[in-house]
Each structure stands twice: as structure tokens, then as C-alpha cells.
């Protein structure tokens, strides 16, 4: 059974928000998966639905405005959408850990570091407080925070941004989950610290065999740390490939644009960086055709009439949702 090999499989996920401006289709029929131990990236511009995808997996979309309308989220073969709230709490933190984007605001300012680290352990692993403390000190050591004993009684404001993010990672890892959802774990940090945090995440995920979903808008991050990549645009996945293949042969104009807009470490860049022209579409009124068409240099008549679906373009592992993807096949990079 192919399903059994997958740790997480999201199928046809549709999440929307009722707002004053209308229904925002933040995630619009998206499918992706994560194999055990693997690192998968979810990439795209701000507002394309990356966070909402991860929060949907955790079932942290707040009603009544937000709603998971359709789809299935199979974790170890079981549909998380069919679980009761109480059963779902056993999954959060225990099976799936989450690292958030904002280390400054994602830790409770009036609760000690120790309390925030141990509460998950006491809840899920049923540790007593002494055992939980010992484990918490061990966890802090693992994420590179020395002197854990003293640190446990401190508060988040006594930690720097990078240390807070390490602390978040320690919290996510505490109960030895099988999967970590890291939502832009480094966006809020200094460039030098970003690399440290990403290295840390990679080392720990390898050491403990934890699978990881890294959400980012930085393709540079993807190249170094991810095995496979899903590129998202306006609530849909428009390209999926192994990281190396995506870099070498992008088959969607949007991916191509993204690649041109970030500095690349693997090429001596004298090329100018080219931002993608135009604005991401309004998610309340998506066009009937391809959502990227208005910004696309490869646009043809068909693009406005009909939205392309995600199809194999280069073997079963490389998929793109573009009518013109064959035009990108042979070195359209110039």
C-alpha cells in the first residue's frame, strides 16, 4: 500500500475564511505529502496559503470565520479531520510539533521557559515534574542553549530572538514527534542566525529521524535543506519536484520567476535579480483561468479560460500546473 509509506498525506485540502470582503479561498484544493524522515518544503509569496496549510493540518483554523471545507489529512493513514477535538489534542505536540514564524510573540511572556517546555511533557508523556525538568534541560542542551538549569526559571524576554527560536524548536521536539511543521522558522531572525537555526533543524531532524515540513518564501533555503519542494501560488500548488530538479529545470513560469528573484549561492551571480512583476491576486475573486496568468510572460489565450491542473512534466516526481510548461523545458532560463 502506497499510503502506508506516507507519514502525512494531504488530499484536496480546501480551507477558506469568511471575511467582510468575501470568502477568502486561502487553500484551494491542495494535495501534498511527507514521507517519514523526509524534509519537504512549501514555498511561495506572502499570502499564498502556506501558514493556513500548516494550521489546517494541526486543525488550528479558527471557526467561525475559518473553515476546512473539503479534503482529507491522512496522518499515519488516519484522517485527522475525522478526529474529535480531544483526540486531535493527542496529535498536537505529541505526533506533530510546530515551530512558528514569530519567536518574539509566540512564547508566553509571563510563563517561565521551564513551564512552557515541561507542560507538553507532563501532558503527553505523563512525566512527573522532576523528570520533565531533567528532560527540559536536556532539550535546551540539544538545541544549543547551555546552562539549562538556570535558563528554566527565566522568562522569554531574557532570551534573544535566536534563542527563543531554539526554545521553540526544543518545545516542538519535546515529545519526540514524527513530524515537525516549521512555519518560516527563520524569517524574523538575523541572516547569520537564520543559517544556524536551519542547520540545527536539519541536524535534529536527521538525528531523530523526524520528518519536516519547512515553510518559507526563500528558495535559497529550500535548495540546501529540503528533499522535495511544493511551490504554492494563490492557494494552489503549481509545481512539485525534487529540490535539485526544481532548481535545475523549473517548469512553471512562477517558479522561474522566484528563482530569478533570489540570489543563488550555487552560481556566481552577475545576473541582475528580477522581482516578479505585479501583485498576487485577490483571493476573494480568483480568475477562472490560471491565477498567475496576469503576471506571466508565457501567457497564451488558454491561460485565461481554463486553469491548468498539476500534471507530470518530467517523470512521476516532477509536476507542474502550466499549459506552456513544455516551453520551459529546454533552457528557458535566459
Amino acid at each position, binding site marked *: 500500500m502506497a499510503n502506508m509509506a506516507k507519514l502525512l498525506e494531504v488530499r484536496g485540502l480546501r480551507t477558506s475564511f469568511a471575511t467582510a470582503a468575501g470568502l477568502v479561498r486561502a487553500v484551494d484544493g491542495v494535495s501534498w505529502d511527507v514521507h517519514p524522515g523526509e524534509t519537504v518544503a512549501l514555498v511561495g509569496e506572502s499570502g499564498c496559503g502556506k501558514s493556513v496549510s500548516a494550521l489546517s493540518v*494541526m486543525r*488550528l483554523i479558527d471557526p467561525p470565520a475559518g473553515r476546512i471545507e473539503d479534503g482529507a489529512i491522512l496522518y499515519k493513514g488516519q484522517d485527522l479531520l475525522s478526529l474529535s477535538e480531544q483526540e486531535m*489534542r*493527542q*496529535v*498536537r*505536540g*505529541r505526533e506533530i*510539533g*510546530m515551530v*512558528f514564524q*514569530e519567536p518574539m*510573540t*509566540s*512564547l*508566553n*511572556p*509571563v*510563563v517561565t521557559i521551564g*513551564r512552557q517546555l515541561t*507542560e*507538553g511533557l507532563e*501532558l*503527553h508523556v505523563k512525566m512527573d515534574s522532576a523528570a520533565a525538568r531533567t528532560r527540559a534541560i536536556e532539550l535546551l542542551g540539544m538545541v544549543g542553549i547551555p546552562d539549562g538549569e538556570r535558563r528554566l526559571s527565566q*522568562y522569554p*524576554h531574557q532570551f534573544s530572538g535566536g534563542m527563543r527560536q531554539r526554545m*521553540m524548536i526544543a*518545545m516542538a521536539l519535546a515529545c519526540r514527534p514524527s513530524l515537525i511543521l516549521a512555519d518560516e522558522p527563520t524569517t524574523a531572525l538575523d541572516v547569520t542566525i537564520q543559517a544556524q537555526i536551519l542547520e540545527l533543524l536539519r541536524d535534529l531532524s536527521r538525528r531523530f529521524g523526524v520528518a519536516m515540513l519547512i515553510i518559507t518564501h526563500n528558495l535559497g533555503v529550500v535548495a540546501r535543506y529540503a528533499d522535495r519542494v511544493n511551490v504554492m501560488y494563490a492557494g494552489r500548488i503549481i509545481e512539485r519536484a525534487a529540490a535539485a530538479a526544481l532548481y535545475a529545470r523549473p517548469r512553471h513560469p512562477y517558479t522561474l520567476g522566484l528563482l530569478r528573484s533570489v540570489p543563488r549561492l550555487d552560481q556566481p551571480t552577475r545576473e541582475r535579480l528580477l522581482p516578479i512583476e505585479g501583485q498576487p491576486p485577490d483571493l476573494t475573486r480568483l480568475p477562472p483561468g490560471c491565477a498567475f496568468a496576469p503576471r506571466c510572460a508565457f501567457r497564451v489565450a488558454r491561460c485565461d479560460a481554463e486553469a491548468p491542473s498539476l500534471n507530470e512534466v518530467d517523470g512521476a516526481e516532477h509536476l507542474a500546473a502550466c499549459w506552456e510548461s513544455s516551453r520551459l523545458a529546454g533552457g528557458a532560463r535566459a
Partner: protein
Amino acid sequence: MASYIIKRLLAMVPTLFGVAVLIFLLLRVVPGDVVEARYIGQGSQFQSQELMQLERKKLGLDQPLWRQFTSWMGGLLRLDFGLSMWTGAPIIEEIRLRFALSLQLAIMASTVATLLAIPLGILAAMKQDTWIDYAVRVFSIAGLAMPSFWLGILIILVMLIVFRWLPPMVFTPLWVNPWENLAQLIWPALAVGYRYSAVGTRMMRSAMLEVLREDYIRTARAKGLALKLILTRHALKNAILPVLTIISLEFAFLLGGLVVTEQVFNLNGLGMLFVEAIARRDYTLTQALVMLVATTFLLVNFVVDVAYAWIDPRIRYR
């Protein structure tokens, strides 16, 4: 922490001095003094000026202002409030029992207000925009709309008619007979506390709604914590501070401002004494009352500030 506490206590001194100067001058700017008040009260405006001057001299009102002020200050430093200009009795004797009553009533009413405001505010926030939220709102607004003396009369009537029982009408200090004492004060405390819970409830609700939108609440949920633990450990501590502030501000008013409620429940508190002291131009008594209320107010504020520092570690030692 200790140095912070000492610093805060010392900072109260200039504030109190300012209050003293202000009330001292304000009283004397208003036309009329205790001598006039007394004779006008007796219906004879045409008392001989000499007699009145003599009386003023006896009370020290003929002295230059700075003289009057320094002798008052000197007394205060020895914790001596002096004599009432109207009755001639030591002020401390006039105030003692009344202050005990008013302080106890203010504490009890604030406690009632807190005990109503916090759970109701949390409930309303959790059930935002449902009928429960609206019910809490109606309950609060009803409390604001009903004058507490009216509610007090209602309480007394209900107890009289339904239970054929009346709360004691004479004040017994807590230390003399706690039961008698509570049987009398619990009713005005409920009536007043209910009224003053309204603002606190609204505050608690909005603070809670705000806190529940914070990122760290999402983090707590992502750890799999149950709602109850999220509320008690992660949300409440962050949301409770503004409510504490509101209730502590109301406290000062409850201490000296419950004139009508005191009358409904036949309580000899500070409120009525305040009104009388001002009407009689009893400078010394008014000054003493103002200083007492101001000091209590500052102390309550100070306690709240310490509570802030205790609850929110980011404030500590500043």
C-alpha cells in the same frame, strides 16, 4: 524587588504633600468658614462680628495661612489629625469606626466586583457573540443602570417580605462580632459590588479576547493543551492586569463616595461624614478625610503595581 518597593513607597510622599497643599488651599478659597456655617445654621446671620472673630481666634483661623498649614503638617507628622472645628472632638475618634466600616465595605464590594467581573468576563469572551455573551452584557448593563441604593432598597424589601428578616441596622466592628458584622455589610457590598463589576466585566471580556488572539495562545494550542489549561495558565495572567487596575481605581471611590448607599443601609461610613464636613466648612475634618482617602488610594495603587510586577516579569525591577 525590595528596593523597588521602597522606591515606590517614598514616591508617595511628594504626592501626598501635593494633595495636602491642594485641599488646604481649595477649602480656604471657597467663601465661608466654620464659624459662619455654624451661625447661619442657627438662623441668625446678624451675629456680632466680634463674637465671630473671637471664635475664629479660638480655632486658629486668624493665623496667617502658612502658620495654619505648618501646624497642620506638624500634627500629621505625629499622626495627629487634631480637633474637629465643628464638634471640637478629636478627629481620630470621629473617624475611627467610620473608617473601619467604609474600608471593610470598600474591600468587600471590590471583592464582589472582582469575583463577578473575572468569571463573567471570561465567560463572555469564550462565548463571544452567542446568547451567553449577550446575557452577560445585559446583566452588566443592568447593574450600571440600577442605582445601587435602589438595588439596596430592593434587597432589604425582599428580605423583609420573603424571609421576614432584616439585616442588623447598627454597625458592629468585625473584631467584635464577625457574624453580626457580615450580616449587615454583605448586602450593601453585594449591591455596590454588582454595580461596579460592570466595567470590570467589559474590560475582562475585551482583554481576554485580545489575549486569545495572541501568538503564544496558538503555540499553547499547538502543544495539545486543553482549553482549561490554556485559559488558566496562559491567558488569564496576561488578561487580568487591566481589570485589576479598573477595580483598584474604583476602590478609592467606594471608600468615600457611597453617600446614598450608606443612608439606605443605615451605615455610618465616611461618605456621609464627608458631605457633612464640607457643608459645615469643617476644615480640619475635611482635610483629614481627604488625606486618609488619598493615602488609601495610593496604597491600593501601590499594591496593584506590585501585583503587576509580580504577574508580569518584564516589569520587575524597573
